[in-house]
C-alpha cells in the first residue's frame, strides 16, 4: 500500500516533538534552577548557608531541568498531532493527516488508497526538520545571563569577618552606635577620675577601657565582660562606700542646735544646708573671733551654749545609732537562733524545704554581713563625729570658762575635722556619680547586645553625622538664619514672637491684602448657633495686589535666645559655642534631678543616652 513513508515521517516528527518539548521545559526549569542556585550561592557567600547545603542546591539545580526534560519527553505525542504539524508546516493540505485516518480503517476504498499513495509520495520528499524545526528556546538568553551572574558571584570574594558581624543577628559582639554610647560613658568616667584625682577610679577606667576593647574585638564574650566589670566595680566601691546620709543627718541636727544662737547661727544654717565648706569657714571665723577676743561675754555664753547643745545632740544621735545597730544585730542573731531551732525541731523533709531553709540561712547571713560592714564603715564616721563633738564640747566648756585661746584652738580643730568630713562627703557624692555612670555603662552594653538592626544603626549614624554639624546637613529653616551679634558668621535661628523678625517678609501696597480670608472678629454667643459664618469661604483673593520679596538684615541685639540655640542645634548640628553653654546648664540640672529623683535605671539610661547624643561636638 506504500504507507511506510507516511508512518516513518510521522514517527520522526513525533520524536522531534518530544525533543522540542524536552528542550523547552528544560530551558524553563534551568532558568528557575539557576535563579535558585544563584540565591543559594549568595547565601553561601554570606556564610548563611553551609557548604553541604550549597552542594545539595547545586545538585538539585542540575537535576531539576533534567527531570523536567525527561518528563516532557515521556509525555505521549498523538500521531494525529504530528501529522497535522507536518501538513501545516509543509503545506500538504491534510494529506498526511487524512492518510493516517484512512490507514486506521479496516477496508479503505480505492480513493482512500489512492490518497495514501499520494501522501506517501509527498512524505518521501518531506524533511522532518522542515516539518518541525527545533529552535533555541527563548529562555536561553535569560539562562545565559543567570549563568554569567553565577560565575561572577562564584569568583567574587566577600570579607568574611565583616559579613559575619553584619549578618549574624545575635552575634556576640556589641554593635555600632550603642557601643559608641558605651565608649562615651567610659570616657565620662575617665573625665570624672581626672576631675576627682582619684587614682583608684583612674585604674578602674583603664581596666574598663581594656575590657571594652576586648569585647569589641571579640576576645571576650559579653558574659565574661559583665562578670569582670562587676568584679572591678565591687572591688572599687568596697573601698569607698559608707552611710554618708546618716552622717549628714547628724550634722544637720547639730546645725539646728547651733542655729538657735546668734554667734553660731551662720554655722548652724550652713550645716542644715549640708554646706560643710561654709561650716568650716564659720568655725574658723568663730575660732578667730575667740582668739582675738572679739566675742563679748554674752556672745561667748551663747556660743558656748550652742556648741554644747550641738555636741550633746551629736553624742545622743551616735548613742541612738549604736543602740539601733546593736538592736539590729541582736534581732538578726535572734532570727538566726530561731531559724536553727526551727531546723532542729522540724528538720526539712523534702528537697524543696531544705532549699528554702538554706535560702533563708543565706539571706540571714547576708544581712548580718551587711550589718557588720555597715558598722565597720560607720566606725570611721563615728570616730570623726566623736572628735568633732569632743572639740565642740571642749570649745564650749573653754568659752564658758573664759579660756578664749584654748577655745579657739578647739574650734580650729573642729574646723579641721569639719573639713575632713566635707571632703569625705564630697567624695561620697562623686562616688554616687561614679556608681550611676557604671550602671549606665552596663545598661548601654546590655542594650548593645540586644541591638542588631542595621536600619536603626544607619539612622543613628546619620543622626551622629548631623549632630557633628557637617555641612549641608541642615534642611529646614535655612533661609531663616541670620547673623547674630555674639557669633559673627554663625547662622542663628530667629523664631517668630521672640523679638526676631522673619528674614523674608511680604510687603503689599494694599492694606486689605493682609487680612484676606480672615473673618471679622466677633464675640462668641451663648448656646449653639443656628447659622454658619456668612463669610464661609473668606474674601476673594485679590490677585491684583502688588507684592515683592524683601530680605531684611539682622539687627543688633542680645543674640539668640536659649530656645533659638537649641532649635539651631537641631538643624545645624551640635557644634556651636552657644549650644555648649546651653548644654552645660542643662546637664547640670539633669544631674541634680537624676540624683535627687528616684529615676528608674532603665529610664535613667535613656536620659543619659539622650544627653550623650546631643552632646556638643568638637
Amino acid at each position, binding site marked *: 500500500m506504500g504507507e511506510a513513508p507516511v508512518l516513518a515521517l510521522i514517527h520522526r516528527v513525533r520524536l522531534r516533538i518530544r525533543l522540542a518539548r524536552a528542550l523547552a521545559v528544560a530551558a524553563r526549569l534551568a532558568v528557575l534552577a539557576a535563579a535558585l542556585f544563584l540565591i543559594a550561592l549568595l547565601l553561601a557567600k554570606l556564610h548563611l548557608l553551609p557548604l553541604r547545603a550549597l552542594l545539595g542546591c547545586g545538585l538539585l539545580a542540575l537535576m531539576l531541568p533534567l527531570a523536567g526534560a525527561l518528563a516532557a519527553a515521556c509525555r505521549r505525542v498523538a500521531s494525529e498531532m504530528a501529522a497535522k504539524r507536518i501538513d501545516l508546516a509543509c503545506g500538504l493540505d*491534510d*494529506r498526511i493527516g*487524512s492518510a493516517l*485516518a484512512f490507514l486506521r480503517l479496516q477496508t479503505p476504498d*480505492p480513493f482512500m488508497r489512492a490518497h495514501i499513495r499520494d501522501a506517501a509520495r509527498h512524505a518521501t520528499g518531506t524533511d522532518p526538520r522542515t516539518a518541525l524545526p527545533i529552535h533555541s528556546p527563548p529562555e536561553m538568553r535569560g539562562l545565559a545571563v543567570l549563568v554569567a551572574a553565577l560565575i561572577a558571584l562564584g569568583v567574587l570574594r566577600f570579607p568574611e569577618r565583616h559579613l559575619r558581624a553584619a549578618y549574624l543577628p545575635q552575634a556576640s559582639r556589641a554593635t555600632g552606635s550603642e557601643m559608641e554610647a558605651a565608649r562615651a560613658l567610659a570616657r565620662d568616667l575617665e573625665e570624672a577620675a581626672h576631675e576627682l584625682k582619684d587614682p583608684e577610679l583612674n585604674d578602674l577606667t583603664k581596666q574598663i577601657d581594656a575590657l571594652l576593647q576586648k569585647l569589641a574585638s571579640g576576645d571576650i564574650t559579653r558574659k565574661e565582660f559583665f562578670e569582670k566589670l562587676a568584679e572591678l566595680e565591687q572591688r572599687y566601691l568596697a573601698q569607698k562606700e559608707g552611710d554618708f546620709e546618716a552622717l549628714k543627718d547628724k550634722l544637720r541636727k547639730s546645725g539646728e542646735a547651733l542655729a538657735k544662737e546668734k554667734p553660731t547661727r551662720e554655722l548652724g544654717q550652713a550645716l542644715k544646708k549640708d554646706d560643710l565648706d561654709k561650716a568650716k569657714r564659720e568655725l574658723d571665723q568663730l575660732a578667730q573671733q575667740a582668739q582675738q577676743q572679739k566675742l563679748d561675754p554674752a556672745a561667748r555664753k551663747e556660743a558656748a551654749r550652742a556648741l554644747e547643745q550641738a555636741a550633746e545632740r551629736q553624742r545622743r544621735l551616735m548613742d541612738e545609732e549604736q543602740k539601733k545597730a546593736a538592736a539590729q544585730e541582736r534581732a538578726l542573731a535572734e532570727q538566726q537562733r530561731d531559724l536553727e531551732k526551727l531546723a532542729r525541731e522540724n528538720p526539712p523533709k523534702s528537697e524543696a524545704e531544705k532549699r528554702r531553709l538554706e535560702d533563708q540561712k543565706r539571706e540571714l547571713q547576708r544581712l548580718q554581713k551587711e550589718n557588720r560592714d555597715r558598722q565597720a564603715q560607720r566606725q570611721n564616721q563615728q570616730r570623726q563625729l566623736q572628735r568633732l563633738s569632743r572639740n565642740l564640747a571642749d570649745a564650749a566648756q573653754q568659752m564658758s570658762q573664759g579660756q578664749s585661746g584654748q577655745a579657739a584652738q578647739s574650734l580650729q580643730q573642729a574646723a579641721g575635722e569639719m573639713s575632713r568630713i566635707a571632703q569625705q562627703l564630697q567624695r561620697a557624692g562623686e562616688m554616687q556619680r561614679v556608681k550611676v555612670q557604671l550602671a549606665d555603662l552596663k545598661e548601654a552594653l546590655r542594650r548593645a547586645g540586644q541591638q542588631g538592626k542595621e536600619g536603626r544603626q544607619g539612622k543613628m549614624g546619620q543622626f551622629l553625622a548631623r549632630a557633628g554639624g557637617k555641612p549641608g546637613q541642615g534642611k529646614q529653616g535655612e533661609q531663616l538664619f541670620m547673623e547674630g551679634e555674639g557669633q559673627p558668621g554663625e547662622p542663628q535661628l530667629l523664631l517668630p514672637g521672640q523679638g526676631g523678625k522673619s528674614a523674608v517678609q511680604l510687603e503689599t501696597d494694599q492694606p486689605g491684602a493682609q487680612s484676606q480670608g480672615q473673618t471679622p472678629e466677633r464675640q462668641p454667643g451663648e448656646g449653639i448657633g443656628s447659622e454658619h459664618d456668612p463669610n464661609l469661604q473668606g474674601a476673594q483673593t485679590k490677585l491684583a495686589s502688588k507684592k515683592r520679596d524683601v530680605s531684611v538684615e539682622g539687627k543688633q541685639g542680645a543674640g539668640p535666645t536659649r530656645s533659638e540655640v537649641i532649635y539651631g542645634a537641631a538643624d545645624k548640628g551640635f557644634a556651636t559655642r552657644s549650644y555648649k553653654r546651653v548644654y552645660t546648664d542643662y546637664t547640670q540640672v539633669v544631674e541634680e534631678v537624676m540624683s535627687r529623683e528616684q529615676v528608674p535605671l532603665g529610664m535613667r539610661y535613656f536620659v543619659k543616652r539622650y544627653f550623650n547624643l546631643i552632646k556638643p561636638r568638637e
Partner: protein
Amino acid sequence: MSQMPVEEVERSAEEFRKDVQRLREELAKVIVGHDEIVAAVVTAMVTGGHALLEGVPGLGKTMLVRTLAEALDLTFSRIQFTPDLMPADVVGTNMILEDDSGRKRFEFQRGPVFAHILLADEINRATPKTQSALLEAMQEHAVTVAKKTYPLEEPFFVLATQNPLEMEGTYPLPEAQLDRFLFKLKVGFPDRRDLHEILDRTTRSETPRASRVLSRQRILEMRELARRVPAARPVQDYAVRILEATHPESPSAPAITKRYVRYGSSPRGAQAILLGSKVRALVQGRYAVACEDIRKLAAPSLRHRLILNFEGEAEGIDPDRVIFEILDSTPEQV
C-alpha cells in the same frame, strides 16, 4: 486489494481535473475575471446543486450562465422573473390540441424549466407562488402538473440571479428556498485590468464564443466521481464544528454568533461544504478533502443559511464576517 482500482481512480481523477480545467478555460474565453465565481458555479454544477448569484446588473451573471450552457452539450433556458410571472410560465401547462382527425386532447406543454441549465434571472421579482413552483423542480428534479409528474432530465442545474440594490417590488426568497441553493455567490465589480479586457472583447466586431467541451454524459460521470472522494473523519469533523459554531446556542459558537445570529445553518450547509470540497479536492489534484477546502467553501455554502437577529440586521452585519470569525475561532484539530 489489487492495484488496478487505485490506478483507475488516479486516472479518473486526472481526467476530471483536466475536464474541469478545459471547461474553465472555455468559460474564460468569454467571461473576464470572476475566477472564484466561475469555479464555484462549475463546482455547483458538478455536484448537482444550484447556485444563487447576487450582484448588481451588468456584471456578467447572465453571460456566465449562457456561456456555461454553450460550453456544455446541454439545453439552456432563461426565465426573466417578473411580478406577473405565473407558475405555469415556469413549469408548463396542459393545452387542448386538435389532431388531423379533429379529435381534441390535452397535451402537456413543457415550460422553460425543462432544460439542463435554467437561468432564473432576478428571481426575487416573482411572487412567492411562482418562486415556489421552482422549489419542486430544484429539490426533486421533477415537476407535477395536473397530478402528473414529469421528471427533469439530468443534469438539472438552476442558476438564479438577484439584484441586491433594487429591493422595491421584490419578494425576498424565503429561507426554505434559499436553503435549496448549494451556494450563494456574490458577484463583485471587476478590477481595472478586467474592465480593460471586457472592453476589448466586447467592442470588437467578433464576439468570442465558447465551444462545447463536455457532454451531458461526461458531466454525470464527473458528478459520480466527485461524490466518491473521501473525507477523513478529522476533516469532516472540522466541517461539522464549523456548522455547530453557526448556532448561537452551541458552546463552540464565537461571541459574534451568539450576538448577531438568530438561527444557524441547517445540515444542508455542511453537505454543501463537503460536496463542494470534494470537487475542489479533485480539481486541486487530491484524492481526499482537506481542511483548506472546507475553509474555502464555507462562505458560499453558509452565507445564505445564516439568519441574523434584529441586532445583526440593525447593525448591518455581513454574514461573511460571522463566517470568517467562526473560521478563525474553530481549530482544525481538536
